[in-house]
């Protein structure tokens, strides 16, 4: 599915300072029954966000007007270590994207979530534990503290303090995100080479 190209993103952030946030929390299994990709953002963090009767849980960050009352909505989510562990459901990445986030920052990502994110157009930015603490502190000091994420330079900056860190992303994936391409475009162009490989395969 087509997604918006990624270049430089400047936005305040929504902080979620919890470790091991798993994809069952990001989107519970009972919302995986769709056969189309529609409205997943509504159920992002469903059980942390809403009571069983559908009323919002006021203590959850996505219901805190400090972070969510702004227009346009904030595009950066900052999570604790081991973000996105558990199930391979891409629905988790869809929910994050469809809610409006384009970038997730953490000191550590689960592998499959990281892959899925890039495939749907979300940039996962992995920072050091120390830098993550600095981000949380900056947001604590000023809920509107803005972050600048530059994909071309592979840097993330806390604008209020000027603190900056580099992040890693492989060249190929960077190129995809910058141009809004996906892997299937690339693979389709290799059809003959793949066919020849399959011919030689033992299985």
């Amino acid at each position, binding site marked *: *599915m087509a997604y918006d190209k990624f270049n430089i993103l400047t936005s305040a952030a929504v902080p979620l*300072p*919890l*470790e*091991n946030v*798993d994809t*069952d*929390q990001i989107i*519970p*299994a*009972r919302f*995986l*029954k*769709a*056969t*189309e*990709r529609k409205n997943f953002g509504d159920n992002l963090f469903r*059980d942390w966000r809403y009571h*069983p009767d559908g009323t919002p849980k006021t203590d959850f960050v996505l219901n805190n007007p400090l972070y969510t009352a702004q227009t346009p909505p904030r595009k950066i989510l900052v999570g*604790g*270590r*081991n973000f996105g*562990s*558990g*199930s*391979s*459901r*891409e*629905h988790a*990445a869809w929910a994050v994207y469809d809610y409006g986030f384009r970038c997730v920052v953490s000191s*550590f*990502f*689960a*592998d*499959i979530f990281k*892959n*899925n994110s890039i*495939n*749907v157009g979300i940039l996962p930015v992995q920072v050091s534990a120390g830098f993550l603490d600095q981000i949380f502190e900056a947001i604590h000091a000023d809920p509107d503290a803005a972050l600048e994420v530059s994909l071309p330079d592979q840097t993330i900056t806390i604008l209020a303090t000027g603190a900056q860190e580099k992040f890693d992303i*492989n*060249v*190929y*994936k960077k190129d995809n995100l910058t141009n809004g391409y*996906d*892997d*299937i475009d*690339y*693979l*389709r162009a*290799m*059809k003959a*080479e*793949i066919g020849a*490989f*399959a011919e030689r*395969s*033992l*299985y």
Partner: protein
Amino acid sequence: MTQSQQTAPNTLFDKVWDAHVVRSVAGGPDVFFIDRHFIHEVTSPVAFLGLETRGVGVLFPERTFATADHNTPTINQHLPVSDALSANQLDALERNSKKHSISHWGLGHHKNGIVHVVGPENGITQPGMTIVCGDSHTSTHGAFGAIAFGIGTSEVEMVLASQCIMQPKPKKMRITIDGTLQKGVLAKDAILYVIAQISASGATGYFVEYAGEVFENMSMEGRMTVCNMSIEMGARGGMIAPDETTFAYLEGREYSPKGQAWDKALQYWKTLKTDQGAVFDLEYHYHAADIEPQITYGTNPGMGTGISKHIPNASDVLDGGASYAKSLNYMGFAENDQIIGKAVDFVFLGSCTNGRIEDFRAFASIVKGRKKAAHVTAWLVPGSHIVEEQIKAEGILDVLTESGFALRQPGCSACLAMNDDKVPAGKYAVSTSNRNFEGRQGPGARTLLASPLVAAAAAVMGVVTDPRELM
């Protein structure tokens, strides 16, 4: 390639990986060829929609296998599925499979069952293969010496369209356990023990090889249980070198090679082991003597310990911060609580971790001659119809029935509670599945992961019990 490189010692993982690289992208991932692709009803519909939008077909339909499992009811499977959304997904799987000439074992088909149970038991999974599925527990198939891992829906679409995905090569880890597992200690305990040592994220970025006596002496069922849970420590997957146990398991299965093809395959499969002196990025060593029956007390699979132990204090664990307190609070537990004697409301035997014949044998060995505790609701769900048939053929069903248990029909069931098999909020379930996340078995459900023996002991005693006392 120079001579010295050719003879350099290689790992099992490298041998299989390198044999599947179609092309390496400069500075990027490998274009990685996939031998077998499993699909199910939950993560495939949007991938097929994507193909349609692009106007692209399935490149090699004979390499993809569809089975319905995540969303299926476990009683009255002959009736129409009452949940409209589930029924819609099951229809979509059938429609898409038919349209693209993909083999489809839908609800009611005699080969139907959980994708990671039916693949191996029909011989579709073989050593040296690359296998993917839109499900993180695809790592199960690594038990055969295959590279197998879970993928997202975009990647499902990629594999359908091109039989390849773009993958950077992970780092390599080896986990060795020496010695012999003690009485009452199963494969599930071995892997829960490892995850508790390494943590739920300790193997992220790695592909694991399990080595040592414990795995060499393990049955294929046990090896599948171990590889299944590799993902629960963050690993992309886990694998075990194929050996005589593997070959004996595969011989004669429906999709296993036959005749000359078998001999040829066997010759190749015998080369699939890590050479002496091959180097891993990270190694861990454990001893079987240190492992007792395990159980989890928290909300990620790394929060587990020996069943005779107390719940650790926050200061003694790796992830002891705010998340630890939140987790114990969710479970209704406190630091230093004794785990034995904790209340149990539900028992779940099943899932792609422990829904195979051996698991039912183990469960039956404990409940035989005893009665199910009156207040416990027990869901016993075979991983496939083939497992179900075997349970009946071996007389296990009679043992279970006599003890007050009933058998349900195959599917993922309470492992992820997408169907009606949900544990109610606040209730405790001793579960043989693989995840104890908040709400995994139903909103508010509290899950304690354990082996089939521990589950059986809980089912008859009505509280968490050390199964060794009942053996």
